[in-house]
């Protein structure tokens, strides 16, 4: 159980690192949103499931409830994170932030 939790947390950290690298390396705002929105939601859910599994290592009813509570955060992130990404993209398009096109310099 603990080993699985460790692996999940490591995978989560890897995807967090990918997300951060993405928002530092991509050329424009919209592609940064791709990196941030996707990597962050998967990575945080992986770490959260890992923490919930690790919490079960001394098994009791109260700990099961706490683990379920942690999983509620994962559900919340899966509703909220795409919504935030969508709202940001929409606002940026309406504000007129220019997308990067092939052959231009990165900003």
């Amino acid at each position, binding site marked *: 159980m603990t080993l699985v939790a460790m692996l999940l947390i490591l995978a989560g950290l890897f995807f967090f690192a990918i997300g951060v690298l993405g928002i530092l390396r991509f050329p424009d705002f919209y592609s940064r949103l791709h990196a941030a929105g996707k990597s962050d939601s998967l990575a945080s859910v992986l770490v959260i499931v890992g*923490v919930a599994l690790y919490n079960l290592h001394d098994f009791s009813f109260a700990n099961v409830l706490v683990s379920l509570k942690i999983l509620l*955060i994962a559900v919340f992130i899966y509703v909220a994170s795409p919504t935030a990404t969508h709202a940001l993209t929409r606002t940026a398009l309406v504000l007129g932030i220019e997308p990067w096109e092939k052959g231009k310099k990165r900003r």
Partner: protein
Amino acid sequence: MMDTFILAAAVILLLLILASLARVVGGPTIGDRILGGNVVGTKTTVLLLLIGILYSDLGMFVDIAIAYALLNFIATLGATKFFLRRRNTDEVLDEIFHQQEDAVDTTKGGPS
């Protein structure tokens, strides 16, 4: 042993938060700054859970994490809504879409 691992994970997460702060401070557009704030918020939610394990009082820190995730979501929504400010989004989107189509047509039709 597990405590050391969790501590290392928390420290790595902190370093990642510092790296994404670069986007908040030096982002060329306002969208980048909001995006950076959102990313930092997501990481902080997870970091709170890890701190909860380290203090071996997870049930308490989960409440804080949920509240933090919620407030982060509301902050992003509020910021985007503030910059939209009663504009007619549909018309603007139509305009952008047609501009892009025209650009594609000219690049295809013209001498390459």
